[in-house]
């Protein structure tokens, strides 16, 4: 499975975006996280630093969908979603 990570710019983050992605990567050892303009990923995670979620809205989703996070509780839901995808 491949997950493309797209960040907001991080002007005044109230959520540790880079650390959250590091935790995500560590918890999904079998998943690849391509950088740059990779071919269509299986899933896209848009990581924002605050609830305004201003990351470029034109970000294309992955083959299996996309998920936007801006708080730890979103990360918990993301993990559950990814677990469901990998199970099915």
């Amino acid at each position: 499975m491949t997950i493309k990570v797209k960040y907001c710019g991080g002007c005044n983050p109230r959520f540790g975006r880079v650390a959250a992605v590091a935790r995500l990567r560590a918890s999904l050892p079998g998943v690849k996280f391509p950088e740059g303009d990779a071919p269509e990923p299986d899933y896209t995670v848009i990581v924002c630093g605050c609830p305004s979620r201003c990351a470029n809205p034109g970000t294309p989703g992955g083959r299996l969908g996309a998920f936007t996070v801006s708080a730890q509780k979103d990360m918990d839901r993301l993990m559950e979603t990814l677990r469901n995808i990998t199970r099915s």
Partner: protein
Amino acid sequence: MMTGEQYIESIRPMKMDIWMFGEKIESAVTNPILRPSLNSVKATYDLAQQPECEDLITATSHLSGKRINRFCHIHQSADDLIKKVKMQRLLGQRTASCFQRCVGMDAMNALYSTTFECDIKHGTDYYKNFITYLKLVQENDWVVDGAMTDPKGDRGLGPSQQSDPDLYLRVVERRADGIVVRGAKVHQTGITNSHEVIVMPTVAMKPGEEDYAVSFAVPVDTKGVFMIIGRQSCDTRKLEGSCMDVGNSEFGGMEALVIFDNVFVPNDRIFQNGETDFSGMLVERFAGYHRQSYGGCKVGVGDVLIGAAALAADYNGAQKASHVKDKLIEMTHLNETLYSCGIACSSQGWKTQAGSYMIDLLLANVCKQNVTRFPYEITRLAEDIAGGLMVTAPSEKDLRHEKLGPYIEKYLKGVDSVSTEDRLKVLRLIENLTLGTAAVGYRTESMHGAGSPQAQRIMIARQGNIAHKKELAKAIAKIKEPVTAK
């Protein structure tokens, strides 16, 4: 887009005519006083390459469809205006200094719409000239300095009334292939780190002042252009080799007096040449964009200063004192108020005839008016929390000295868990921002950059719509008679 290293290598071969302390400087790249300012501009390239920042630092060119650095972008929506402010806050946070690239972005955005409207009225070709130039800027990812402020001589007299006519930059010769200009621009932030300079008039011109209504772009190393570097408080500490004593060893800002000594400008680089009725529009739009900018960049630097004050409180063991907590809250409140103004004037942006987006002028002027005040209060509170040691601490050399070092370690220690060295480092950073080299950008530039306080008050008076407010009051008070001023 260039990487940071490619940017440095693009500046290195330029033959700029730079002077400092009465001597010609070989290169802005290698000079220890100027290098931190170059590093701040480099950050605008470095962050564009980082996935966690690129969404703000880059944009899609409406001319080429390519991804470009946002500093070369013409705002296409209110969202672009908001992202500009967010980008500036981010860069202020990462450099704790002026990163110098905003002024060119603001000049280009002002010229984009002004040249378009001027061409409609006068049948000139300035918009075409400007679009050709803009494509070059975007393709080459250039840094462009925006030069507006003339020396102005006797402030009671207009450009054409000065005893020395060069006190406002002017056209001294019109030729078939271009113009020759003479004059100077003061306070030119980042010019030694720029590939190009855009010159604009400093005030609205009147009929009879056609020679002063001039705008153009030239490479910074054009024959006849030379720069005299402005002194900054504590600038020569950068020559001492101490990382600690400078407070911010990596980043900084620079300003220069720039002389245009009979400089030739070819026709295709001219964006205004005698149209006095459009000099005011260009000044107003540039100033409006630049007053918006301060609602981002100064906020980012303020974030660093608030963080430094909070660290100083921790290191002093005073972090639990209620008055210290309250001062940090007040600093945050002031800083976020500035940001609110920057975001507000952007969110109310409107579409110009050329299709680009312009900020709300009233709110941008309110933004900058607050910037002339709040950073001063933030620095006052930072100095309050830091304590007097921020200006009385011994040097790094003393700290490293065989005999003196142990005494400094012993007597200047704060809490046990933090080294004396770290305590002194954060105090030096606060010194740097409040009264050292960075205070040029964070304090006095907050006062006078993008126009002094009275300039904003004039704009607020013009845009404030008091007549509408009188009507509102009359309606509520059931006053039927028209209000007549006595």
